[in-house]
C-alpha cells in the first residue's frame, strides 16, 4: 500500500478538456472520469436536460502524490474560479500491484 491523495474535481462538461490539460501539463498520467454527471451549485442546476452537454458536469478522480497535487492546486483553483465547479481532496491508500 502507498499513501496518496485522492482528488475529485467536478466541473461543467464543456470545461473538462481544460482539466485534462492541467493534468497533462503537470505530467499526471493517471485519472478517471465520469460523464453525464448532474448536480447543483452556485451557478445553478446542471440537470442534463436539453440537447447540449452544456448543462452536464464531468466528474474526475485523480489519485496522485502530495507533490503532484501541489503542482495542480493553483491552476485548478484558477479554472474553478472562472468556470465554476468544485475540488475535494482526501487521503487514500493505493493497493500496489
Amino acid at each position: 500500500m502507498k499513501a496518496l491523495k485522492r482528488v475529485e474535481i467536478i466541473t461543467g462538461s464543456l470545461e473538462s478538456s481544460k482539466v485534462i490539460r492541467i493534468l497533462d501539463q503537470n505530467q499526471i498520467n493517471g485519472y478517471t472520469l465520469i460523464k453525464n454527471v448532474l448536480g447543483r451549485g452556485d451557478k445553478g442546476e446542471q440537470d442534463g436536460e436539453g440537447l447540449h452537454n452544456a448543462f452536464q458536469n464531468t466528474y474526475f478522480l485523480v489519485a496522485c502524490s502530495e507533490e503532484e497535487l501541489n503542482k495542480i492546486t493553483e491552476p485548478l483553483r484558477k479554472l474553478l474560479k472562472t468556470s465554476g465547479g468544485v475540488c475535494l481532496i482526501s487521503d487514500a491508500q493505493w493497493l500496489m500491484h
Partner: protein
Amino acid sequence: MSSDILIQNLLNPAVLFFFLGLLAVFIRSDLEIPQPIPKFLSLYLLLSIGVKGGVELSHSGITSHVMTTLGIAVFMSLLVPLYSFYILKKRVSIYDAGAIAATYGSISAVTFITATSFLKDLNIEYGGHMVAAMALMESPAIIVGVLLINIYRKDKNDEETSYGSIIKEALTNGSVVLILGSLIIGLLGGERTEQALEPFTGDIFKGMLAFFLLDMGLLAGKRIRSLRKAGSFLILFSLIIPVINAAIGIALCQLFHINIGDSLLLVVLLASASYIAVPAAIRITVPEANPGLYVPMSLAITFPFNIILGIPVYYHILEYLNLHT
C-alpha cells in the same frame, strides 16, 4: 380561413405530441425520453433537412434570388441581437442582455423544421437554400452578443475575450457542420441521393419529428417552472420580440418579392430563438449570464408560441399580402 389554418396546425400530430409532452409534465407523469434519444432524433432531423435542402438546391441552382434571401438572413441575424440588446439593457444586466440578444438573433432548427412540415401539408414549395439560410443564421448573433457585452462591461477582463476562439466555436458548431455538410452532400448527389435516402430522410420524417416534439414538450414543460424567476418583463419580451422580428421579416420579404414558401421560413427563422447552440456557446464565453433566464424564455415561451400560433399566423398574413399586392 385564418382560423382554419390555425386549427389544422393544432391538429398536426407533431404539435399534438408537443402538447402531450407539456401535459405529461403538468400531471407530473414519469414519462421521459432518456438521453441520448432526443439527441439522436435531433441529429436525424438536421441531417434529413440538410439532405433535402441540398437535393432541392441541386435542382434550382444558386440564383440571384437565392443570394438575396441569404443576404437578408445574415443581415437580420446581425441586426436582431443589436436592437434586442438595447431594449434589454435597460432592465437586465449587461450579461443577460447580451445572452438573450444572442438567443433571439440566432434560430431554432426545430421551429424551422416544423414550418417546413407545415408547408408540406399545404403542398407549398420552398427553396433548398432556406436550409443554408438557417445554418448561416445560427452563429452571427452569438458573436454580436459577446461583442456588445464586452463593449459595455465595466470590469474589462484581464485576459481579453478571444474573438478568434468565439468565431471558431461558432463556425465549427456541431449542428452548423451537420446541416451544411448534409446540404452539400444532397447538392453533390442530387436525384440519386434523394432516391437512395428518401425512405429514411423523407418517409419516416414526420413520425420522427412528432416523436421529437414529444420530447420538446417534456423539456418545455420542465422549463416553464423556472420562468417565475424571469419576471413579467422578460416573459413579455419572449412573446413580443418574435412578433417584431417576424413583422420586419414580412416587410423585407414583400420588398424583395420572395415567394410565399421561402418567406414563411425566413420569417420563422427570424421569429425563432435558439436553445441549443446559443446556450452552449454563452455558457462558456459569458458564464456571468444566467441560463435560468435565456433558456426558459426561448424554450418554454417563444418555441411553443411559434409552433402553435406563430407559424399559421405568419403564413396567413403572408398569404393575405400576396393576394392583395
